[in-house]
């Protein structure tokens, strides 16, 4: 039991993101309401963003913006040590992923509006029933 707690604590970031991801995935599959599915999708994507960003963390390091940054480059520049700054790459990647998530959300909402206009409901079973009636 103690071991398990140790494992969980050492990697708690992953446990949190996976829990969130499972919630999102479950909502996407099991929810009947199309907008709730979109919400689930967003939770899912956010969980992944959380996961990536958490991998960038580095104990004892600060945000990846160089001090004394202004001006000089080349020979006169300050020596920079990698251990002092956290990993910038996941942040960059997640900036992209956030944008993608927003874009997907926009399109999903637009589609949901179209569906609502057509069927007057956002409940999937009702929509399917209406389609079957025709």
């Amino acid at each position, binding site marked *: 039991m103690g071991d398990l707690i140790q494992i969980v604590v050492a990697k708690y970031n992953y446990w949190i993101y996976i829990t969130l991801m499972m919630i999102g995935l479950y909502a996407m599959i099991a929810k009947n309401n199309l907008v709730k599915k979109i919400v689930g999708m967003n939770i899912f994507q956010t969980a992944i963003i959380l996961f990536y960003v958490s991998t960038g963390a580095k104990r004892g390091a600060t945000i990846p913006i160089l001090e004394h940054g202004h001006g000089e480059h080349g020979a006169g520049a300050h020596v920079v040590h990698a251990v002092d700054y956290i990993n910038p790459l996941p942040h960059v990647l997640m900036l992209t992923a956030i944008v993608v998530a927003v874009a997907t959300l926009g399109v999903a909402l637009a589609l*949901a509006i179209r*569906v609502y206009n057509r069927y007057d409901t956002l409940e999937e079973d009702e929509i399917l029933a209406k389609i079957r009636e025709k």
Partner: protein
Amino acid sequence: MSQQYPALLVIVPLLSALVISAAGWINKRLCFPIAVAALGVAAYSSIGLLLRVLDEGAIVYRLGGWDPPMGIAYYVDHLNGLVLAVVSVVAFLNLIASKKSIELELPDKTAPFYALYVLQVTGLLGIVATGDAFNLYVLLEITALSGYAMLAMGKDRAQLSTLNYLYMGTIGACFYLLGVGYLYIVTGSLNMVDIANILPSLYESKAVLGAFIICLVGVWVKMAFFPLHAWLPNAYTHGPSAASSLIAPLVTKVMIYVMIRLILTVFTPEFAFNILAISKPIVWLACIAIFMGAILALAERNLKKMLTYIIVAEVGYMVGGAWLGNRAGMTGAILHIVNDALMTLCAFLVVSNIAYKLKGYAFDDIKGLVRKMPFTMGALVIGALSIIGVPPTCGFFSKWYLISGAIQASQYAFMVALLFSSLVNVVLFFRVIEICYYEPFSDDGAHGHGPPSEPMAEAPLTMLVPLFIVAAGLVLVGIYTGDIVNKIIEFAIPQGIV
């Protein structure tokens, strides 16, 4: 200039898509020529690129001038050189063929549609060319978003099915992204070749296994591999003709390419086939996919929807072929990417011709098609023969390699599944041909002289000519299969796979 082909291939369409979108606000008639020019350049440079690859071997293009693990690089070898050429040519032909149908189906939104079309092609080309695992994800999303938008412009329940596609597509892409994240944590790299170099020491790692599985499942969702296929038929059926005839031939095929790339380059065949013992179950899954695709297609009374189920079965062909783990199977899978793209394009162009001239493409609507649209019908027959796998059309030859691979790997179930699906395809297509040929019936005595001839109502030339080119391509690719295999695919498969 030939040094810059890899960039031109993707940049020209991207820039043109933007220009089209802007030009649409000024003069709508500008959009189509720009799109044609852009895809023409893309097709030209992709073919030029393929020829260069044949001469010089793999080409690395450093975007931004940064060396690969730091920056993003395009890595074009024989495998993606071939796929690039197919994608750009298919997109180009379909664009020309679709002009009229876009104008008919979406009269006031041609400009954004062309822009999305070209963006979609950009995304597909980028996916194929890129050598960076994360870049692939971004391009995947461009492809997906433009695809959703185009498919949702259809009639009936298009929006609903596209929304379902969006959910599934997002899950697939997110799974892939997760897989890349896992790989990044254990390797620290995003470049495919770099990852492959680091991985051998990590083959035992659970993280790599997890990354592989989650990537694979993500890609399977995107390609509609059997139990994950539910989004595909409706989304493709209800979309506008131009969109489905672009997306149906290309998207699933490009996703197959991604899977093969993951197997061959990122995780290496050694890992995928030897260390993981999952080839057999996956081939079994592929068999089920083929069976189910075929059976579901049989139940359809709508030509376009029937074709979508055939796509589901064809995805099974390629996944199974790739996972047979031998050279013949892999050759078959790669060859089938080319062939299936052309075959599906041919079939969907026929559907869009039908949709252009007739009320719809349900079996009831296409009665007597032979007399109304004889040329379209002829192309449908050629496409059907290729999908069935009759020599000398190209479909036969990829099936040949796939079955050879199945025999060599002693996966007889896969062989049976392939033959079963061929037979079902015979039934499917000859049913269609019968309907087009006999109905409506006229039983004027024992000596039926056929129904009274109806006036011919053939689709316009701009739709027919690309269709004929594709139909001829099916036969030509079949005849030159030997060259394609010996000069391109041979080099695309690493020596390690026997």
